[in-house]
């Protein structure tokens, strides 16, 4: 495992490189090279560790010094794997991303430093075994992420969005203090490996769960604590928003799973709580996403949705652990774990893609895009793969994890008869509903951004090799997990069996016949190709030509007549107007011959704009009206001495 620490050092050494090279271009090249090298070595180490399953559970040696600060157990290594796996392409992208700014003459050094720190601290988080070390890495992670976010700090929304994030993480860490204090006090040790508490701890058990779930849930972005995501993600530099959405919110999931490790078996109602909260997050996350026009904001809401899906898996797992039923746990947690990986992959892909678009068009508003497919065909293909995957549609990776989660529903229904089938069915329907909405949403953004004619003329749309490379890696992963899930399932299963769920070996994810799925998918794609060839031959025979689209005989069709994103999503948004705070503004035409008209539709966030902000405003206005102890006249100062002395003396007098 020393190799891993060497890789971390290698990544940190990039900071030195940045300091060393005065010229931005050289510095970024060197730094990215070092980062990539470090990440790859790290990834290889981690992967071999996972596959050979040499998990070190306690006192391991770092550079020959025996320390219990770190631990490499299955769960930690799995997340470490994900982090490094996602970080590699992100770093590759980051190189070409920063190139744009360097060409503009903006200094990117500080940003690079924060990126390096962010990467290393995040990797440290998942391997740290000592609670204090965990907190330190956790806070360093959050802070460096914040510092990275404020790259374009002149903009107002950047400041607010980043500040939301900072405050959120500060609140989280306060909760975590208390959480770990209790655990420390109970087990009188700071080591994760010693933390364990069973439900007969009574009230404390519930308090701990409340603390853990709220704290980590905030980080993960469950509703109603999601308010920071749609603010922080759009304004962050793409590299950071990709990492944020791909990895950092997953740290919340990591925390929740750890909490489960510390405190099990869980009471059943907790499982239901988590399940329902996650269901709400999933449904409303995607529904909010449907109402957005800003691509990054939209993707942020999709993170809420996917976190919800992961949460559903965890909730089922909790129920399973309440009934000590291994299959339910395996399927629930397994689905959650796999979906964590999947979401990390395709969400990063989509964010990087959105970054590429932003770089080229200079806008994030999808209403101003369109017809990009005619400029970057392969780019669109890659983005499309990500979209299909995130909608959970076969044959890509999103489907696999959702499939497991559906199975967990079925299994729960089968395992714990009576009214469980009903509840589980409702959950399944909920998930199906989410899937439908996701399809609607992603057909929307893909068609509005890429298809049809360009609404705003595109000056240049060129994608560098590095961008293609990073997108390609992500897409490849999506396809691989989709078409050949077996090895990934094996890894997840290993993670589950290695101490995460006791006696999980009795039932494993491999009971599902994954090869059959692969066969189906592959043969289907073969079929597609065959028909394609057949179609080609037919077209050769009977000819094919290009003509203008059918417009009821009206020839003057122009791009502005195309269906817009808001009109596409309108019918669905109308249905849950109030929850989405969805309102439209039309100025009515009074003249016979209509003049220039205007139509707008917006959706505000209920939790953010309607609850949180007003609450804070009222509170601050209330407090700032308090004139308590803020006098300017020295006589009051003196008087206070007298008053306080009398008060204290009275207390002393009344003291028993």
């Amino acid at each position, binding site marked *: 495992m020393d190799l891993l620490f060497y890789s971390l050092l290698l990544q940190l050494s990039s900071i030195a490189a940045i300091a060393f090279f005065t010229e931005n271009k050289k510095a970024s090249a060197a730094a990215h090279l070092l980062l990539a090298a470090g990440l790859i070595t790290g990834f290889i180490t981690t992967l071999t560790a996972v596959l050979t399953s040499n998990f070190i559970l306690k006192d391991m040696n770092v550079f020959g010094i025996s320390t219990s600060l770190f631990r490499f157990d299955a769960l930690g290594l799995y997340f470490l794997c994900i982090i490094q796996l996602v970080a590699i392409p992100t770093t590759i992208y980051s190189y070409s991303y920063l190139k744009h700014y360097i060409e503009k003459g903006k200094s990117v050094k500080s940003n690079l430093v924060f990126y390096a720190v962010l990467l290393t601290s995040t990797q440290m988080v998942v391997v740290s075994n000592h609670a204090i070390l965990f*907190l330190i890495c956790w806070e*360093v992670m959050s802070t460096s992420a914040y510092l990275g976010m404020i790259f374009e700090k002149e903009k107002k929304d950047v400041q607010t969005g980043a500040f939301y994030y900072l405050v959120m993480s500060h609140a989280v860490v306060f909760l975590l203090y208390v959480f770990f204090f209790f655990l420390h*006090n109970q087990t009188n040790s700071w080591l994760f490996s010693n933390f364990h508490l069973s439900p007969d701890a009574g009230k404390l058990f519930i308090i701990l769960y409340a603390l853990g779930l709220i704290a980590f849930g905030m980080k993960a972005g469950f509703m109603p604590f999601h308010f920071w995501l749609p603010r922080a993600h759009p304004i962050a530099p793409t590299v950071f928003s990709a990492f944020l959405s791909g990895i950092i919110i997953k740290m919340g999931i990591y925390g929740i799973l750890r909490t489960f490790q510390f405190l099990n078996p869980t009471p059943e109602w907790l499982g239901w709580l988590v399940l329902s909260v996650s269901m709400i997050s999933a449904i409303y996350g995607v529904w909010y996403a449907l109402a957005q026009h800003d691509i990054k904001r939209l993707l942020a809401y999709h993170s809420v949705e996917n976190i919800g899906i992961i949460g559903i898996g965890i909730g089922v797992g909790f129920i399973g652990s309440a009934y000590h039923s291994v299959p339910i746990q395996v399927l629930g947690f397994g689905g959650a774990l796999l979906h964590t990986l999947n979401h990390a992959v395709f969400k990063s892909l989509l964010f990087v893609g959105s970054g590429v678009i932003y770089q080229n068009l200079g806008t994030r508003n999808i209403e101003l895009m369109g017809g990009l497919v005619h400029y970057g065909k392969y780019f669109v293909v890659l983005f499309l793969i990500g979209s299909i995957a995130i909608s959970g549609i076969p044959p890509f990776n999103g489907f696999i994890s959702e499939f497991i989660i559906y199975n967990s529903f079925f299994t729960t229904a089968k395992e714990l008869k009576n009214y469980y089938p009903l509840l589980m069915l409702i959950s399944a329907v909920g998930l199906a509903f989410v899937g439908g909405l996701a399809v609607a949403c992603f057909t929307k953004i893909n068609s509005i951004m890429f298809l049809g004619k360009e609404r705003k003329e595109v000056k240049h749309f060129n994608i560098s090799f590095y961008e293609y490379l990073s997108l390609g890696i992500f897409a490849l992963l999506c396809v691989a997990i989709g078409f050949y899930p077996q090895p990934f399932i094996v890894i997840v299963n290993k993670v589950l069996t290695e101490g995460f769920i006791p006696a999980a070996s009795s039932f494993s994810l491999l009971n599902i016949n994954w090869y059959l799925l692969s066969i189906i998918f592959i043969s289907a794609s073969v079929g597609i190709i065959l028909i394609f060839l057949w179609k080609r031959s037919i077209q050769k025979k009977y000819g094919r030509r290009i003509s203008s689209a059918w417009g009821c005989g009206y020839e003057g069709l122009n791009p502005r007549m195309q269906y817009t994103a808001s009109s596409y999503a309108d019918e669905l948004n109308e249905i849950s107007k109030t929850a989405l705070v969805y309102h439209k503004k039309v100025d009515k035409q009074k003249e016979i011959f209509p003049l220039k008209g205007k139509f707008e539709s917006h959706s505000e966030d209920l939790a953010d704009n309607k609850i949180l902000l007003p609450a804070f405003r009222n509170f601050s206005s209330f407090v700032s009206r308090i004139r308590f102890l803020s006098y300017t006249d020295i006589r009051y100062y003196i008087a206070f001495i007298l008053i306080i*002395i009398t008060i*204290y003396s009275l207390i002393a007098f009344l003291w028993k």
Partner: protein
Amino acid sequence: MLEFSVLILIPLIAAAVCYLIKGTRSQYAISLTVSAFHLLFSFIIFIGLYKPNLPFFFSTDPLSKLFLLILSNVYFWVVLISFSYLKRPVTSKAEAGKKYYFLLLNFYLFANTAAILSNHFGMYWVAAEATTLSVAPLIYYYRNEEALEAMWKYLFLVSVGIAFAFIGILFLTLSANGTIMEGQQLFFSEFVKNATKLNPIWLKASFIFIFVGLSTKIGIAPMHSGDVDATSNSPSPIAALMSGSLRITALLGVMRIFQILTPTTSYEFAKLILIIGGLLSVAVAFIFMFKVNNYKRLLAYSSVEHLGIITLGIGVGGLAFAGAMYHVIYNSLNKMVLFFTAGNIHSRFKTREVNGIKSVINLMPWTGWLFLLSFFAISAIPPFGIFFSELMIFEGMLFSNKPWILAVTMFLLLFIFINMGKTLFQMLYGEKSEKAIQEKESFEIIHFSVIVLLILLIAIGTISPGILQENILSISKDFGIRL
């Protein structure tokens, strides 16, 4: 005798010399060497290489050793940057006052060292009052109306307060009546030895008077105002000096009397009083942060807040006490960093109004980033030291007999963080106004010292030297706290 001369006499002599010779540069040279010696010596004493035995009213114990080290450390850095600070242009009236600057500083060092090392309450009182007297003219450095008002208020309030502290000391003698201590000298070590015999009523009274009296100097609400005015209107090195060392000198007095109360029946009462004071201070800072428009004042209130946290820690006792001791160290370092950087910002923008300041990071990158970092440090974000001390204090609170304190404190601190952040970020970011001349900021000694201090802040926190640890453990033992 050596230690006595180095720690107490030499600063006095240096002050005299500074009175005689005129050149600022030579004054600076002398003061710097004195401070360096002082730092070195107090460090040697702290790590125990040298066992000091001081004459008549002076002595050392773990507590005074720690505070002495903090004092001379703060003093050293303040002197180090003072020269470059003096070079900055000010009004002609202020120019005239500069010749007393180092004199007063040296006198301050003398008085403060005497106060910290004194074993006798009378001595402590005299020395503490002397520190006030030496600092008051320094507050008036800028020779403008605000400075004048601040000086007046500080001088007057603190003098009255410390007079009350004197009453408290007299009560202490009263409490000794009818015991073997009767007619004895006010050596507090004696008092600590047979504290249980003392008359509880007078003891309580004396604690109240001393605590309230010295609160004017510590800046515990509701006696914080004079302190805040002074800190926010004095030049940055002096502000750092006050927040870093002067306040804790006053805190020392409170801790002495608290130590006497420790074994007695009035212990719980004293703890309650301290907790009330601490919570009040944090609350005052919390309220202020909602309507801040002057960043020096904001920093002053931040030190009110942190002294409040320290008092809370002492009051809660247990682990929180040790945490508070650490917090004293980190806070002194951190306040220096904040005030130094803020001083740079002030001398660049010539205003203390938050609204007058935009995009510091772009205009002066060094100062800007360092200021941002020191804000993170003060709001307890790791790996900076305050994080560790607050962690200890919080845990102490949670497992004390009053866990609700933790809830209240966390709530207040969270909002303090939010509002402080809002204000400071508004200063740091934002698009720069056109008229802001874009000159490259050069790397000055202030930046150097700030960086060193930040590194120190991280290093002490993460490494947590064994010597420091056992020193604090022995302090806690003196206060009857087993860890």
